[in-house]
Structures are given as structure tokens and as C-alpha cells.
């Protein structure tokens, strides 16, 4: 099953490589990983998407918790949560395609954030599946480049993943 894990890490040099090293050394799947400092600059928050049997995911969580730099870990998939990913997609936009792409962006509530005579950059935020759907919806041959942030997530409700 797919799990989305949120990890608070000490914002130390090398903390990221410890996580990456753990996954490669133990042969765990890693679908995506995003990391950035939090409002407390001494902490980073990492969101990690992984897949595996329940036993493996249990081990992944234990191993992540075991890292000395890990302050807290939450498996968002265990409760109601919100998942968001950001995508910027550069498309070729000439002639009739310009209108078509604009309409598509509107339907998906995406923003066109860069325009040239021949191209758009479209920005879209949402659940990863929505991003996948947008990519599928773009007419064949128009995609120049896709950049995705990888998912980040937060639990619903008033409780927070804080110290």
C-alpha cells in the first residue's frame, strides 16, 4: 500500500542523506521525498511517499524513528489528511491550442504563469491524481516539460505535528 509519511528532522547537514541512505541500504521503495525548513529554523519537515506491505512500512517507520536526527514521525495515511502537490508544466501553445489550453487550465483551476508567443507555463496544485489527470488531458505532443514537487501533506483537525 501507498503511505505518506511526515517526518520532523533536526535541520542538520547530512540529515537528508541519512534518510536517503537508509532507503537504499535496506532496499525500501521511495516514490518521492520533499524537504524544507519549518517555521522553526532548527527543524526540517520531510514528506515521504513509499509503498510496501504493512510489515515493510512498519519497519520503515521504525527505522526512520531510529535515526538520531528524527524528532517526530507521523504516518498521514493512518488518518484523515490533506495531500497537495505542485506542478509546473510547460506546453507548446500556438494557434487553436492556445484557447484549448486556457480552457483546460480553467477547468482544473490552474494558473498560467508565463506566456510567450509559442508557450505557456501552467501552475497547478492539488492531489497527485489531479496532476496526473491534467497531464493526461493535455493534447498529444504539446507537453514540453513537467516539474512536480512531489506530494506534501498535513493531517486534518486541530492537532499538529509539532514538538
Amino acid at each position, binding site marked *: 500500500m501507498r503511505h505518506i509519511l511526515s517526518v520532523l*528532522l*533536526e535541520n542538520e*547537514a*547530512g540529515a537528508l*542523506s*541519512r534518510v536517503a*541512505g537508509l532507503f537504499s*541500504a535496506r532496499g525500501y521503495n521511495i516514490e518521492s521525498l520533499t524537504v524544507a525548513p519549518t517555521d522553526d529554523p532548527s527543524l526540517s519537515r520531510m514528506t515521504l511517499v513509499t509503498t510496501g506491505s504493512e*510489515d515493510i512500512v*512498519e*519497519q520503515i517507520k*521504525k*527505522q526512520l*524513528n*531510529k535515526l*538520531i*536526527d*528524527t*524528532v517526530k514521525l507521523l504516518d498521514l495515511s493512518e488518518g484523515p489528511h490533506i495531500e497537495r502537490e505542485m506542478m509546473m508544466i510547460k506546453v507548446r501553445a500556438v494557434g487553436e491550442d492556445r484557447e484549448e489550453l486556457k480552457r483546460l487550465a480553467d477547468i482544473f483551476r490552474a494558473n498560467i504563469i508565463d506566456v510567450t508567443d509559442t508557450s505557456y507555463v501552467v501552475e497547478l496544485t492539488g492531489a497527485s491524481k489531479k496532476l496526473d489527470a491534467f497531464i493526461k488531458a493535455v493534447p498529444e505532443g504539446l507537453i514540453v516539460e513537467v516539474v512536480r514537487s512531489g506530494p506534501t501533506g498535513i493531517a486534518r483537525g486541530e492537532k499538529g505535528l509539532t*514538538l
Partner: protein
Amino acid sequence: MELTGAEIVVQALIDEGVEYVFGYPGGAVLHIYDALFKQDRVKHILVRHEQGATHAADGYARATGKCGVCLVTSGPGATNAVTGIATAYMDSIPVVILTGQVPTPVIGSDAFQEVDTVGITRPCVKHNFLVKEVNNLAEIIKKAFYIATSGRPGPVVVDIPKDVTDPNRRIPYHYPREIRMRSYNPVQKGHLGQIKKAVDAILEAKRPVIYTGGGVILGEGSETLRELVKLTGFPITSTLMGLGAYPMTDAQFLGMLGMHGTYEANMAMHETDTLIAIGARFDDRVTGKIEHFCPHAKIIHVDVDPSSISKNVRVDIPIVGPVASVLQDMVRLLREQGREADRAALADWWTQIEQWRGMKCLAYDRTSDKIKPQYAVETLYKVTGGELYLTSDVGQHQMFAAQFYPFDKPRRWINSGGLGTMGFGLPAAMGVQLAFPDAAVACISGEASILMCIQEMATCKQYELPIKVVLLNNGYMGMVRQWQEFFYESRYSHSYVDALPDFVKLAESFGHVGMRVERPGDLEGAMREAFGMKDRFVFLDVIVDPTENVYPMIAAGKGHHEMHLSPERELA
């Protein structure tokens, strides 16, 4: 007090109560060596190879329970130390390794003797640090000792760039007495609810087995373990790493379990209905094929590291906590219950176990005119009266020692189990002998293993360490030859140790005593003579039967009930 970075390193070791540092100098650590020179509180032991430094610090830690310390230079010094670091890591041994690094301004420029020590060691340490600022040095060293020795112990590397130890820069020194880390809080006590569940299961058990491991020794749980075993009357077996935590001469002890474990221990594992695992990690050498592992058992597992629990085998009653306190709670709750397990069932179970014991799975040919390695270990036991610190290298000799030298105390059997590092034995014995200068310390080894750290004989001479090397010389990498005999139709590919040195002369050339024994009748006398030389390092080259194999044996991928007992006695 204002100190330089180098002085801070040394002062921190003093404040930490460190007796010995095992090390080898080089450019990046010269400031530290200069600071060592100017004091006499911390004793430095000059090894002859950095691998020796790590194993010696490791042996010291295993024998004393204290943290071992080593100091090596950057680049090749650090890479030479890696095998020893990984060895300590696999067996959860507390060691702090100080490595020199090139100065911070040139890190990343492929400077002379630069390697990414933090990167190279990351997968085989509990944690590591790169000290970027002398102001952080004292606190990082404190953290290193704290992390290495608490929770599930392990090695911690502190990488110190040369400019951090600059002799021209002084800063105020303060060594924190205690340290707290928000990201690291090892469990201090087991969950009482879980322990109660375990006690209930223990009281319901009909065919129980207690299976203990290195964690009982690491966590100083031996005393309470003895109480538990006596209180319950249950049979107990141990992994290679846990030997001595419970007296091996006691009737309730079934011998080691696993690949080369006893018939009675492995059969009891196969038939048990309640397995009580304590400080053991269900290693593949122990479980054999997982599908056949303890097929009838409810499993209780006590371990301080949550990631050890349900890693290889799914357990029914997990208890995360340090062995000593969990066992105390367990014993207390059992006493409070005032109930007993099913005595009649337990008596039947013991009858069954005695039947298995009756197979005498460790029997060997006592009439041979060659020295059998088993006989050599038995004689070693007889001569030393069980009062030995015995370190080991890796191979058949290690297994024979585990099977035939019954340890009655913890921290007496010192060997590399998880990594299985040939070359471990001799340097580890140095650490043990320094920790206990008056104790009898021996290293059991093979002619292949001993050559991997043979240079440490010079260290033994320099510090006059009266270690006894007992070499079971079979002329082969015996353990490899055994596998080739069983699984490769006796094609002994590169396992014959050709062109061996004359070990007697070799020992003598290092300034030691060398002796050779070739006949069974001479062995006991030779050993008595060797151990009689209390202030000399003696190298005893024992020529043993080259064809002997270690039995019982469970082949890889087989279950506990599928043991080979000997060539003559195959089980169905």
C-alpha cells in the same frame, strides 16, 4: 579554563573517565597527539593498524561494559578503521571513534588524505558527526558518548577537521555533565500492560523456551535473567552473542541454538508453544528458514530497539524496553501472581528435552591420534578452570569454542557474530587484557584468521600483554572448506592455506614465546605450561585434524528440525 580544540578533545576524554585510547597518528590528528603527549591521565595504546585500534576498543567495551575509544587519522586511517566500526555496529558495541579530517576550508577539494568519513561510515554507525566549529566540539563529544552507550549501544564517529584542533586558538572549555536531545530518547522502562500479558502467557505455557541474546549482556540483565529461569523452571537457550549471560554449566541451559546449535536447543525451538525472546534479534543464523521457525509458538519479545521487534519474525507480545528493568518487572509480577505454570506439562516437556539431550549431539571421536579441535577446546576449559576471557576469530574454531567452552559469566566470551570479522580476536584480546591486567585472557583462532591482524603481536610486545593465542591450525579455512565439502562436492576452491609461516618462529621474532603441539597426549601439558607463563605472551600453535567439521549443522534455508548431526548420524 581556556583550551585549544586539541586540548578539548583530551580533556573531554578525561572528563568522560576514559582510561585508554587505541590509536595511530597521522597528519590530521597531530595537534591531538601533541595534546596527548602533554598529559598522563588518558593512556594511549599505539596499535599497528587502525583495524586493530577499533577491535581493541571494541574488545575493551565488550569485557567492561564501558565505552571503547579510538583515534585515527584522516583518509587511510579512517578507511582502515571501517571494518572495526562495522564489526562493533553489527554486535551493538559502544565505541567512540575520533577521526582526523582535512581542514574545513579544503573539505571537498580532494585534499591530501581526504575521504568523506561521515559518508563512508554512515551505514555502519549508530550516528556520526562532523565537527565544523571548535565551539561545538565538547558538546559533540559528550553527545557521542551518550549515544554510543545508551539505548541499543553502537559505534559513533566524530570527524574532526584539523583546523578545529588549531593550537593557536583557545576558547572557554565546558564539558556538559548531562545531555538531553529532543530527537533521541531511548526507552527507559517496558510497558507494564505488555509485561502483564507476557506473564499471563508464561503461566499458561506448556512447552516454554527462553531464548536469550547479546542484549542481556549489553543491558546487564544476567542477574535477573537467572532469577527468572530459576523461578519458572523453564529451559533456556542462547545465541552466540548471549553465551555466559546464563551459566552454561547449569542443567536448565540447553546449549547454543541456531545453525551450529545443539540438537536439544533447536528441537525445543521447533516444538515450543511459548517462546520468550530476550535481547535477541532473530538473526538468520538462528531462525533458519523463517517459514519453519517455531511453528507452534506464541512469541514474546523483549528488546530495547523497536526496530528489532517483528523485523524477521512477527511476534505476539512485543515489549520495548531495557532487559534489566523489564525482567525485574516480569519477575516481580510473577511472584505477585503466586500462581505457577502447569507443573505436570513442564515435567513432560523436560522429559522430552532430556530425550533429545540423550542424542549427545556434540559427541566426537575421542580415540583419534590427531588432536581434535573439540578436544583442544575441552582441554583449554580444563586448564583454565572456566576462568578465562576468551576472544575469538571467525571460523570453525569459533563454533567449537562456543560449543565446548561453557561460560558461566557474562562478558567472558568475546567474538564477532554479526559481521563475522576474521582478524577480530587478537586486537580484541588486547583491549580485554588492558582492562583486566591480572586476568587470564586468551584468543582462540585459526591459521587464516590470525594472519589478518598478526601485526598486533608488536603492540602486545610494546605493552607487555600476556595474552595466550590458541591457534587451532587445521591448514584450511575450515569453515569454508566445510561448506565446500557439503555443498560443492568437495571442490576445495582456494580454501587451502598454503605457504603458512612457522608460527613459533614468527611469535619469537616479535619477542614472544612460541610453542607447537601435534599430539593429543602433549596438549594439556603444553597448555598448562603456556598459561603458567603469567607475564608472557604465548603463541600456542595446535596442529588439529584438518578434516573435522562442525556439527550439528542446519544448512542455510532449512528448519530447526532438519539438523545434520554427523556424517554417520543423519536425521531423517
